[in-house]
């Protein structure tokens, strides 16, 4: 990801907003050691994704998640918590996937 988010990461919005994979869509993902490609069966488009973006997508495939949930879920076993830098990168990734029409904001109510 080259583009940085315009605003600094806001814990409050991130906390309440859940992301999910777009409804009823069929994706085919192929990963190699240095990147991934994804076929979107509905639009017929192919996207070149970083491995991190592919991981986000797979994570959201299993269940809708907030940014925080994503960060925790994607941490490698050695790490304890996501730092601000990771969050920024993650937010940009999510925004990118949203723009590609692969994920969307979930409308289901929060269970707090």
């Amino acid at each position: 990801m080259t583009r940085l988010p315009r605003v600094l990461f806001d814990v409050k919005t991130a906390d309440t907003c859940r992301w999910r994979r777009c409804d009823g869509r069929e994706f085919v993902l192929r990963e190699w050691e240095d990147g991934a490609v994804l076929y979107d069966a509905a639009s017929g488009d192919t996207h070149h994704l970083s491995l991190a973006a592919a991981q986000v997508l797979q994570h959201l495939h299993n269940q809708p998640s907030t940014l925080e949930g994503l960060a925790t879920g994607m941490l490698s076993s050695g790490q304890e918590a996501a730092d601000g830098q990771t969050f920024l990168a993650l937010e940009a990734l999510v925004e990118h996937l949203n723009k590609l029409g692969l994920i969307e904001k979930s409308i289901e109510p929060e269970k707090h």
Partner: protein
Amino acid sequence: MKKASNLKSIEPRLNVSSFTPSEITHALKREGIHLSVGTYTIHLQSAIPSVSESISLLYADYPLNEDTSFADFHVSINHPRNVRRWIHPQAIFRIETYEPFKPLPADQAYPLLEWGLNWCVSTQYHRYLVVHAAVVEKNGRAMILPAPPGSGKSTLCAALVLRGWRLLSDELTLVSLNDMQIVPMCRPISLKNESIPIIQKYDESVTMSRPSFDTNKGTVAHMKAPKESIQRVRETAPPAWIVFPKYQPGTAAKLDKFSKASAFMGVAANAFNYSMLGAQGFQTVSKLIDRCDCYEFSYSNLDEAISMFDRLAQQ
């Protein structure tokens, strides 16, 4: 014209060279000829002398079908019927009655035919993934060279086949959707501008068409495919390497591993029918990438490039 009749089993198939140029001119002008180019048959009709001249020269070793019942593409190249015919003669390419391109000056009739045939294959031949790439073979393995125009792909391809690599295709790589084999079509190699004298110097015995000047690609000439490649046109080859070439003046040849995901996008972007094939296109390119080592290659010297590729083929 010679008849094979009852000698068919002994006599080899008739080639274009079995006939005199004037016999070919005559046949082309009237009912046309059925030319067998690897996996497909072209029914070609043309009353333009430069076309028949190039066919006799560059397609000399291609089989002429005596059985004229079926052709994959029925094409013609002729002077359009208009007043300009007498002032600035033009050539128009037709597939049946359809005219995919505007007429060009008659001097460009033969290159226009080659572009037209590429158009036929790339728009109507979806049994294969059709990639805009040169492809050559050595030791039973195929090397795919996809590239945008100007990357020196055709020059490199011409040099490789003049140094013992087998030509599968210089412009369109056909990847079989069933078994992932590369299917040769082995037509003449299109060379542009300064590549023409470079290749002529590279091998003085090379057969080349009369150049056409001032085409939208500059000066264009076609080089005859080696006879052995034409004779082995039915032999498919498994893909082993995908190399994205780039001509960089004054640099030493350099071969670098290329990211597989990027190579995927590079092949997909150069495949005419990638999007048409939908999920099957995605699967086919994925399999292709899995089977191949992918490289980026920059070069300025042809001999250096070829010895590097020869080493690759030895591994």
